[in-house]
């Protein structure tokens, strides 16, 4: 369980970095907006989780926000990015602060 979480966490970290890289490099014109938006939603998930873990956000909001982000990412050019968000969502639903803290640490881009 822990190992798999770690694994997908790493996958997401890579995804986020890749996204940011692609956005910075400024790839295809039409999809640029979509990439930007996807990267922004992924980063939002990390921030929501971080604030929630500190106790700064109510549970209902954190759950709904993560759910929405997961949906948004599912529609994005990188649907894989939704996976780690679902994981965060699961941890928030279980109110497992430690798991959230760990995931956030792994996901935070440098």
């Amino acid at each position, binding site marked *: 369980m822990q190992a798999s979480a770690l694994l997908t966490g790493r996958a997401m970290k890579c995804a986020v970095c890749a996204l*940011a890289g692609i956005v910075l490099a*400024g790839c295809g014109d*039409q999809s640029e*907006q979509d990439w*930007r*938006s996807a*990267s*922004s*939603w992924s*980063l*939002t998930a*990390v*921030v*929501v989780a971080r*604030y929630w873990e*500190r*106790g*700064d*956000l*109510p549970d*209902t*909001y954190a*759950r*709904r*926000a993560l759910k*929405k*982000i997961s949906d948004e990412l599912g529609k994005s050019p990188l649907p894989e990015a939704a996976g780690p968000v679902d994981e965060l969502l699961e941890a928030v639903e279980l109110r497992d602060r430690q798991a959230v803290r760990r995931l956030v640490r792994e996901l935070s*881009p440098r």
Partner: protein
Amino acid sequence: MKKILGIALGIVTSIGGFLDAGSIATSAQAGAAFGYALLWAVALGTICVIFLVEMSGRFAIASGHTITDAIRKRFGFAVLIVPFGATMLVNLLVLASELGGVCVALELATGIGFQLWAIPVAVALWLLLWVATFDVVEEGTALLGLVTLCFVVAVFTLGAEPVPLARALVVPSLPADERAHYLFLAVSIIGATIAPYLFLFYSSGAIEDKWDKSYLMPNRMIATGGMLFGAMISMAVLVVAALTLKPEGIRVEGYEQAALMLVPAFGRWGFYLFVVSLAVACFGAALELSLASAYAMAQTFGWNWGEDLKPRQAARFGTAYTAFIVLAALIVLTGLNPMKLTLFSMAITAVILPLTVVPFLVLMNDRRYMKEHVNSRFSNMIVALIVLLAAVLALVSIPLEIVGSK
């Protein structure tokens, strides 16, 4: 003494009209995407709206007419119907945005989807207009609106550096990247700042309160002070978003993301402060907007109007805002993304601005209405330039934004 109280009240009430879904959404997006860079747009819009609000008060004082009334008399029904129709359409979209803002705030607080709130919020809004008197409505929302000052407090808590802030306020800049989106946001900000309902509403209020010549000076102070006060808050929203959301790489596409912006400043309180600010500002704006639209209808067709009249005494007036609220609630029920709806409504506002502002400017220079109180050439130029600039930019950037977001 009474007048000083009136001025203070005028300044406070103008926040109700100034900070609304439009300002919050556009400022939050601009700050998150471009940092301080778009502060000049808020400044430009504010200068223009100060002039316009002062003019509409002066017009009411000098001529005894409301603006809609005078446009019809001066230019005729066939000419009035164009700006009237356009303003009504935009007012409806903006009212839907404001209702949407209240509903989203409730969703953020309770976790119940915003569409489910559309009907309860619309009923609450309608009931207030239906049974309460104008003073209660105006002063109540104004006092509650003071909660939005938390954004200003946050700017200080977060320690914004004043020099780059001041520079962005005065010097417009064009980013290397995403120019189309930047222009679209600039236009939306100007549209959110110069809302036509704001000065139409203001002139109706001046007529209802029977302002005479002795109000020329207080009018100037209320217009300047009130609009600056409101501008300060929407600038604060932009700065806070630039300080807290931009470094995280968050671009605001939904209110869920904007809701995070006060957390770094106030912790757990930050979230609730945002939610309450959003709800109060949008609800206040929705009240004013429903009234302003009903005023415009009554003044176009010559009906009885006035918030202090009981619905029985002004049945057409009451029916007008009722219908308006129902239509706006239906738009919210369709489930359109409230933030997208808000942004587009604001950009369209910028497009139609010249339709109301140009005839109004002509009136402001007509000695038969204004006597010795006609506009100076300087204020004509300022307002005409800003409004035309905004409209042209809007016409260019709206199609680009639509293409870009597809």
